[in-house]
């Protein structure tokens, strides 16, 4: 007997109701039950961060969260970043700074950075951006472009506010 649960959640502002098995991960639920395939699975044990989504405002590894835990929650995925055909400032910065190659890890980095920038982007230094980006794995870029894109977005969102460690 499968242990099934009826849950409801909001993904990128849209309501979903579904019945999921207790052991089904949030990542599998988003991808295979709800069709949000932009959330990627790179390791399924919480290290690579490719599956990072924003759950009630906080970045989480969707492979380490069960779908049922998202009952009643608001989830943001990479599909919710752009405004129609218009890329978000962060997405555009990723393209401008060549912060992606194969693009598999990219949704995870975008959601990680989005959650951080929404919380506090005013004090983002190069060192803190590097520390943030070190939370996830990328195998293509060497990270430089990702760090630059996150920094550029933070600066553009808070013009004139320079972090303490910069002249």
């Amino acid at each position, binding site marked *: 007997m499968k242990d099934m649960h009826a849950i409801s959640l909001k993904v990128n502002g849209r309501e979903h109701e579904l019945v999921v098995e207790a052991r089904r991960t949030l990542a599998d639920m988003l991808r295979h039950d709800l069709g949000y*395939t932009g959330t*990627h*699975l790179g390791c399924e044990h919480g290290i690579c961060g*490719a599956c990072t989504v924003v759950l009630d405002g906080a970045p989480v590894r969707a492979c380490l969260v069960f779908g049922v835990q998202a009952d009643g929650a608001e989830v943001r995925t990479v599909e919710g970043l*752009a405004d129609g055909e218009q890329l978000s400032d962060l997405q555009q910065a990723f393209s401008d700074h060549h912060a*992606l190659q*194969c693009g*598999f890890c990219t949704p995870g980095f975008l959601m990680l950075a989005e959650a951080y920038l929404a919380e506090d982007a005013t004090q983002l230094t190069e060192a803190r951006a590097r520390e943030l980006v070190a939370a996830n794995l990328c*195998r293509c870029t*060497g990270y430089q472009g990702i760090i630059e894109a996150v920094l550029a977005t933070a600066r553009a969102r808070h013009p004139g506010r320079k972090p303490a460690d910069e002249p």
Partner: protein
Amino acid sequence: MTVIGTRLPRQEDPRLLRGRGRFGDDFSAPGQLWARIVRSPSAHGLLRELDVTEAVKTAGITTVVTARDLPGKLVIPVRLAIAGTDLSRFLQPVLAADTVRYVGEPLAVVVGDDPYACEDAAELVGIDITDQPPVLDASNDKDHTAAELTRGYGDTAAAFAAAAHVVAIELAIGRHSGVPLEPRCLLAVPDPDRGTLDIFGMTKVPVWNRDLLADMLGIDETLIRVHAIDAGGGFGVRGEFYPEDFLIPWLAAKTGRPVKWAEDRAEHLIAVNHSRQQYHRVAAAFAADGRITALRDDIIQDNGAYCRTHGVAVPELTAAMLPGPYRVPAYRGRVRVVLTNKTPCGTYRAPGRFEGTAAREHLLDVAATRLGIDPIELRRRNLLTPREMPHERPISTLGTDLILDTGDYPALLAAAVKEADRLGYRAQARATTGTSTGARLRGFGLAMFVEKSGLGPQETADVTVSRSGAVHVHSGGTSLGQGIETVLAQITADALGVDPRTVRVTAGDTAAQPFGAGSWASRSTVVGGSAVHQAALAVRERALQLAARVLEAAEQDLDLADGSVSVRGDPDAKTARLSLADIAKAAAPASRYLEKGEPAGLSARRRFEVSHMTYPYGVHAAVVEVDAGTGQVRVLRYLVAYEVGRAINPMLVEGQLRGGVAQGIGGALFEEFGYDEAGQPQAITFIEYRLPTAAEIPPVDVLLSQDAPSPGNPLGVMGAGEGGINAVGATVANAVRDALGLAGGVGQLPLTPARVCTLAALAQPTGGPVTGGRA
């Protein structure tokens, strides 16, 4: 105005940034089944029994297959055969039948409605294996040789006997691999009525894989269509033909239903090609003035349990490329390929060269100490000069003659040293910092290398203008994250005279391009790009011919730019302007502008053939900091100077180089597939297999040189995929050696903290800071 050489934003980016990329696991088909592979838990043993009774009875399970269910004794053949080697006894079976040879070897496949249920059922398969002792140390093994190869020329024995100095080192290169972020995935969709199979998830060499699959299934190859997909990194390992590449399509054909398989990370780390593990005993003979008179290397390659699709191409490349950019009058490289009870090996970005460059360049630094010559000066004295180009070595590799085609090696070395000094590398390396817990020692390391790129023999491209004026490119290359769609769009736009945004590239769809040779060996821009260039030029020529008929003008009076044809010098440019869309319509069937017997359509197919590779080259330099107390190595600065002939898109070339450096630092310091004494793999998660994060990778300085256009292709390009990783092992080893002030070499990569502590203890105290310490 040409778009070649511009930093055009990537065409791939918008879909990938929106989460609309189409990776393997993003494809599904109605009614699909899922597959789970049952793998050997034993490194070596006799397979007595596979009991599938319980697994088959599990709810939701459709079938469980073992070797007995397969249509015959199937093995995966070699794709890159090297003349003179017979590997037929060492090929991997699709499913093990009587002997298992590594942990992770496929034994059975469970097929069912749901991946979770399949995983449950897979654990119910009873596996009875009588263990046998595993072979795990190739360096001390004499009995499991799969092949021996020698590459070389000249009388090395005489040169070594007559040498003023002989310097020798041993260097072991650790077992690591590409480890792309996306695990493998396959979906095979059968149409039982038409007998067709649509495949999603194959890449790299889709046409070769299609043909092999057709042969193994005994069907016509045109019944199989491999679709173009996004791939989450390739690096050599993804897209080779593995057992699963037969099993999943075969199960789809057998069940008449779509079958999908998505590998998990633990599987990936034991199933996908490992690479790199070699033991080098390398020596050079020098004249009194430091000139190399001979070079020799005895290499053992730990190839794992089988010879897979690459055969012995990796060790062959090591032996063939070992002399690098230097004048080496006599050379002999000998490789013994040993089979062990580990995951089989294949190529990983700069295959054979990461290893060989490390051995040669580390030897040169040790030799510089012995000979009392600055390591950069020692290299400078031995580099081939432009006057010696092209330089033919009597060596063959991958079936081609090794002819270093062009370049000014001393100039690039000088430019790299100047750039490193401008950026303060050597000054920073001399500034040692002390802490209460022990000295932090800094070191500078440099290495030089020759890469290879643009392997033929051919690539085919189709360029077609549709009625809307859109330009469609069907290339045999595949999209692996390298930006091939953007690069081919730029090449097309330049040759045809259109905006690159009107160019749509399809890369790696076997129905769209049935003659493609794939994306590997840094060949796509060189060989694939040249084919696209030629096809686009042919379309341009045809467009002008048709436009001349429409405009009733002479072809030589016409210009094609910005997607339209105009009559040169015509004051009324508006009336005499014809768009490519108009010309495509003029080329439509039944158009009055077509002459009798002329084929319709504004389209061309061209094949670019090339019999020799082109050889880019580069210099790497680094500053490292070694904590002698903890053994931790931090790479503080990293520079890549690279000759690329001509950069179609410098942003993408720099991206390739930077990404390569990051992977190289992984292999030099962190990544290693270890095994315990029973042959159990010790790196089966990202906790043990340590991919570098942003905390370990410094910003990478790039000096991109376009001074030596390749004479072997119309674009003058050289490959860029592997120049970032080639010399990282060498450079980091040299910098750590410099930091520790070692008299000899570091002995082994990766330089994990434990190994660095051992080396630090061996280092002779020189009284005071040992930075740059050459006693």
